């Protein structure tokens, strides 16, 4: 019988010591596969009895080793991720699968493959648009991915096992969405800081254990009476990755973060994979069409951004309208990690879109380093002063 009062505490423990559980599993004979990005179809790993583990950087760790392999004016997240790998922090991994989610990610994959020694390594070439031809190509990429894993594990991937894995991961998506239902009340029942910790814990556990953790968290949060306090603003954060609670603390010192549209929040979980006859069709559709990351461009009319700007904005950011209404959001922070071109290019249009909805927003650029947190705090506080 799981202890229902310990979900959040356990999530925090895993957040603080992320690799402990997968190292235990490894000692018991499981194989652990790292992945750096939301676009890697974890269902295929799970179906082959592999444990997915999201590789992260460390905001507190100065980048030293990665500088011999990557330019310094380059995605700080990639730099810190590779730096941690080069310092041996992921040495327990049996393999690594990465994906063309951005050009720095792709280039880093090549460097990673040469510099970090994993028994298994694979790169998925991800198309940058949602054209039908892109879907065909992406599905063939997923087939290649499947084959390399079959050869690595010596096991055949059965459609039944893949469907079962899709169901487990869909359950995880449903449970994360249920957690976000708990941020709807004022004050929210669960804080943005707690969600960052829970989501990062999910990315450090096999899917079934993650689902148990989420079930515990939800039941604990629903029954506790010492949840977050009401703050003057209900914020939406839109970012690439927000995976450190020190960053979230800055927002939550003066606001309730009720929606975190980043890879450390709801983005990996908002949709769900359709169960198709060939499960790879459902996976290809979900990962290419459903995940709303700035790296995939969603024009209303492909090739014609300017034809109908309003319609184009709707096509690119329309999903936020419903969120803003249902979560009663009254301010948005567009948080950009420096040198993150895909997100930087979306900022002016997204700001236009939010202006159109009457939602005040601010665009803040920061370095993914501890030194960047004090200037970030000043900008966030000033924004909150303008909307309160």
């Amino acid at each position, binding site marked *: 019988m799981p202890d229902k009062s310990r979900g959040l505490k356990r999530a925090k423990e895993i957040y603080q010591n992320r690799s402990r559980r997968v190292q235990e599993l490894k000692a018991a004979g499981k194989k652990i596969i790292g992945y750096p990005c939301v676009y890697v179809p974890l269902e295929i790993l799970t179906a082959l009895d592999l444990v997915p583990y999201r590789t992260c950087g460390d905001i507190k760790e100065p980048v030293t080793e990665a500088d011999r392999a990557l330019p310094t004016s380059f995605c700080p997240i990639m730099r810190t991720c590779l730096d941690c790998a080069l310092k041996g922090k992921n040495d327990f991994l049996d393999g690594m699968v990465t994906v063309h989610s951005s050009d720095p990610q792709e280039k880093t994959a090549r460097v990673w493959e040469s510099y970090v020694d994993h028994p298994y390594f694979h790169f998925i070439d991800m198309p940058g648009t949602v054209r039908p031809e892109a879907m065909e190509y992406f599905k063939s990429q997923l087939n290649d991915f499947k084959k390399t894993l079959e050869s690595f594990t010596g096991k055949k991937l059965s459609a039944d096992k893949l469907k079962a894995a899709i169901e487990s991961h869909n359950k995880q998506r449903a449970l994360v969405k249920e957690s976000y239902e708990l941020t709807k009340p004022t004050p929210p029942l669960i804080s943005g800081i707690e969600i960052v910790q829970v989501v990062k814990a999910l990315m450090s556990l096999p899917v079934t254990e993650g689902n148990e953790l989420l079930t515990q968290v939800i039941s604990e949060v629903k029954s506790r009476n010492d949840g977050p306090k009401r703050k003057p603003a209900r914020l939406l954060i839109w970012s690439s990755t927000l995976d450190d609670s020190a960053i979230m603390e800055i927002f939550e010192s003066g606001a309730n973060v009720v929606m975190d549209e980043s890879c450390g929040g709801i983005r990996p979980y908002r949709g769900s994979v359709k169960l198709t006859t060939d499960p790879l069709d459902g996976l290809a559709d979900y990962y290419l069409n459903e995940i709303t990351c700035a790296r995939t461009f969603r024009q209303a009319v492909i090739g014609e951004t300017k034809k109908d700007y309003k319609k184009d904005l709707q096509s690119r950011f329309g999903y936020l309208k419903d969120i803003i209404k249902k979560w009663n959001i009254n301010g948005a922070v567009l948080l950009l990690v*420096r040198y993150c071109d895909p997100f930087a290019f979306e900022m002016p249009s997204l700001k236009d879109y939010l202006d159109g909805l009457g939602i005040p927003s*601010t665009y803040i*650029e920061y*370095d993914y380093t501890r*030194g*960047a947190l*004090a*200037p970030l705090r*000043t*900008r966030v*506080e*000033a*924004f909150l*002063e*303008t909307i309160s």
Partner: protein
Amino acid sequence: MYFAGVDIGSTMTKIVLLDTDDRVLSAIKGPTGPEHRQLANEVMKTALEQTGLQLDDISYVVATGYGRFNVPFADRQITELSCHARGVSSLFPNIRTAIDIGGQDAKCLKINNGKLIDFVMNDKCAAGTGRFLEVIAATLGIRLDDLGDISLKSTKKIQISNFCTIFAQQEVVSRLSEGEKLEDIIAGLHDALASRVAALARRLKVEPDVVLTGGVAKNAGMVKAMQENLGCELLVPEDPLITGAMGAAILAKEHALEAIAKGEPVSTKPRRLEKATLFH
């Protein structure tokens, strides 16, 4: 009743004491240095001596600036962006845009009816800040205060292509070795800094009245370069360093009077100059 605003910037610490009629009783500036907490106490002591007031006489204290959490006797912290907006609005009631260039950052504020409505700030590096001029002055062996007047003598502005403080420093040295005149190089540097800040400001719509504040506004060469780059007239307060502390003091007054009107207690902090300790 009396109110105080303390602005601990990266380079200078400023304090303003106000009375209920917005009369400035004291306005003091001193270099910040490494010991914020010590300095907050020191400037407050000096201001009290100047006015003959006791610390207990101050009804409410607002701290601002990047050292705002290091003012032991402050009742409340408000960011320098809101405080600057309030401070410059008290001096220029028709202000819509404020550009503040300080030692560590440059910011552009959009203001409506005295309230901050939007802002942009520079990145964390020294490009586009007062530090840029400090480094260059030190390289050239010129007093920071003299830079502006020297630049105004220029007849042929030299294009400086680097925004990065370190690279610009190297560019200056190489231009000097090519025999270019000092005043032309300095005018070029002012233009480089001004174009960087103007580009930042243009991310928001620059509407008149536009006011320039911060230590850099004391430099006449910079005011000229900013006007050229923005293509509009700039207003400069008599003391452009003090607007943040002034705004903090005004916000302190407003907060205190609001609390009184609601029948709530005004001050939240014990009025004593604690023994200064770092990281306490």
